[in-house]
């Protein structure tokens, strides 16, 4: 792990003059320095100080969980073999409250989110870096749980965590743990998978039901007491994309539906790709529990966040084959063809009652309505 200086320097304690503390010591001198506490159950500022405490944290928590030879080399960076062909690279920061929520946690999210961004480039996951900003007072048990979850998610995705960093901020200046990961992936196809490749005539596929992550997190964060088993959809999407690529689908664009949900992603792609996207509200799967929670709060599932869903734009004549390839993979077994692309601009949805309405981005975050 690299170890640049702390953002906030903590001034060293002024050494106390023993004679002033205890005048009688002058004649009966036996210096007994207190032994520093190295087994604190909580993160202290010392864990980010670059000293023994930090190294013990790295050994005890990070190296143990990730178990990667590059990480074990304890060097400033990782020395890694590079694949032939193109690379994809991406980075993302993860802040979520609470750290653990039904179906997932910040650790798994910080791996899957970055792996998914690579997957959306059609890249197989290779290497990942992880930086942690820890808040003073965080229970080390909690950190261990987060890191273990990251390790499991990384193993599942087949990505190596090869280097990292740790900083500690004073209590009240963080929210337990912030994680920033960057990922590198290998591109072994010749497609240009991006919004500019979307063409009129393309079919629009959605990988499954929407809105579960956002509503699961909101349910626990706001203590709404949903009695359902509403769980985040947080998952690794690479197997779904790999299936499409292995099946020879000429993918034009992929986009994972995170903040802002399906609606926002489609508006972004329509704007960048300069095409009009039409989709059918009736074709968009929304689970009953998500619908119920959205109804109660006056939210629109189209704008609710996901962590394990994506849309794919493929040529119309490959749509059915792409659909069955997606449905053959567990994470996208609920895939649907929901719309088409045509010349023009904007996103138009055919509503449940058969009328059309344009779809726009939200101005800010979606807020629960009064009544």
């Amino acid at each position, binding site marked *: 792990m690299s170890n640049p200086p702390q953002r906030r320097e903590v001034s060293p304690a002024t050494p106390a003059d023993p004679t002033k503390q205890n005048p009688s010591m002058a004649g009966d001198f036996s210096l007994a320095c207190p032994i520093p506490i190295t087994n604190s159950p909580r993160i202290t500022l010392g864990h980010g100080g670059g000293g023994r405490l930090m190294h013990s944290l790295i050994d005890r928590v990070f190296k143990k969980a990730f178990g990667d030879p590059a990480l074990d080399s304890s060097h400033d960076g990782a020395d890694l073999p590079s694949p032939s062909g193109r690379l994809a690279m991406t980075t993302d920061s993860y802040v979520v409250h609470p750290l653990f929520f039904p179906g997932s946690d910040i650790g798994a999210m910080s791996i899957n989110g970055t792996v998914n961004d690579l997957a959306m480039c059609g890249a197989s996951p290779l290497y990942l870096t992880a930086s942690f900003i820890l808040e003073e007072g965080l229970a080390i048990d909690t950190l261990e749980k987060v890191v273990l979850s990251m390790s499991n998610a990384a193993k599942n995705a087949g990505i190596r965590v090869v280097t990292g960093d740790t900083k500690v901020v004073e209590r009240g200046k963080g929210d337990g743990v912030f994680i920033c990961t960057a990922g590198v992936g290998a591109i072994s196809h010749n497609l240009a998978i991006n919004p500019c490749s979307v063409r009129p005539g393309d079919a629009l596929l959605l990988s499954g039901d929407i809105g579960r992550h956002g509503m699961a997190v909101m349910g626990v964060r706001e203590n709404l007491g949903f009695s359902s088993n509403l769980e985040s959809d947080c998952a690794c999407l690479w197997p779904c994309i790999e299936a499409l690529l292995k099946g020879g689908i000429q993918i034009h664009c992929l986009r994972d539906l995170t903040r802002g949900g399906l609606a926002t992603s489609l508006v972004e792609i329509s704007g960048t790709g300069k095409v009009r996207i039409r989709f059918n509200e009736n074709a968009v799967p929304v689970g009953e529990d998500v619908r119920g929670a959205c109804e109660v709060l006056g939210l629109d599932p189209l704008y609710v966040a996901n962590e394990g869903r994506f849309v794919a734009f493929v040529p119309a004549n490959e749509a059915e084959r792409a659909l069955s390839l997606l449905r053959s993979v567990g994470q996208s077994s609920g895939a649907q063809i929901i719309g088409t692309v045509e010349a023009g601009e904007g996103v138009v949805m055919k*509503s449940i009652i058969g009328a059309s309405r344009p779809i726009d981005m*939200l101005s800010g975050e979606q807020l629960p309505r009064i009544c």
Partner: protein
Amino acid sequence: MLMKFVDEYRDGKSAQKYSALLARITTRPWTIMEVCGGQTHSIVKNGIIELLPKNVSLVHGPGCPVCVTPAEILDKAMEIASRPEVIFCSFGDMLRVPGSSRDLFQVRAGGGDVRIVYSPMDSLKIAAENPGKEVVFFAVGFETTAPANAMAVIEAKRQGLRNFSLLVSQVIVPPAMEAILSSPSNRVQGFLAAGHVCTVMGTMEYEPIALKYQVPIVVTGFEPVDILQGMAMCILQLENGHAIVENQYARSVRRTGNLPAQEALAKVFRVIKRKWRGIGEIPASGLGLTEEFAAYDAENKFGIVSYGAEAESECIAGLILTGVKKPPECPVFGTKCNPDHPLGAPMVSSEGACSAYYRYRLPPVAGSS
């Protein structure tokens, strides 16, 4: 899976059936106002206007609580919320509404403890957990939100919580409908009354209005089929020269309403004059706390004085909220005024007519129907 009492009212086939019925029964142009912001939202979100005969015009009423809350109340809210000893609790969509110079989000960014809650009871809990703080709940809305706010105050008194108060900006619907009907520029010929307001208050108080102004009033729900059915009932009355109160939303509304809720209202609130944003003061159109509960009135507690008149603005909220104009008829709609830079409240709330028009009808899409 079907969601009971929801999905059957979102059924495309039923909607098309009512659309055909409306086309068959409508022989003349009619202008109908949906009173509630929730109905406006549903109309625009579902594209209901497309299913109406071309000579039927829907105008959007004053029933958006966010839109009608005057800037001076918002300024009071922000002054209270900025105080270090205060935890200010509000429903989410009030946070973005601008007062005369800022909104509650900005107060929060500046260090104010402003929290989004889902029920006034949540803020009561916060008060119990923070005895050293003053907890203020922003009591906005119509007869729909008022009973829960009344219950919160009754409960605070029962628990002996002295650090809880309401900043009250409650308004009631019938006086606003009368204000619209008695305006010389009125063009409303029939109403879809607000279903949830009537769930609390019943339908009886609308009967004298229908009679006095000879206007059909159909208490209507919020799903697309509800609204189309309510429209059909209203137009049938207009075509036949009737002017009575009918109840389309019978699965939720009784003629007498919810009596325990009305009792709680009568205990905690009294009817007072209120200022409506963009419309002005309407006599006997709002609720204030009764003498018995005056100790829970944040305005008393914090000694907030009244502010001056609202600053001049290019916003034509008053004309929008009384149905005289539609959002696209406003000269600054979608240009100087948009959801990122709202000049008035109807562009802020998801229930506001301007915001709903902007969100669901822009950018203009040729051939979208």
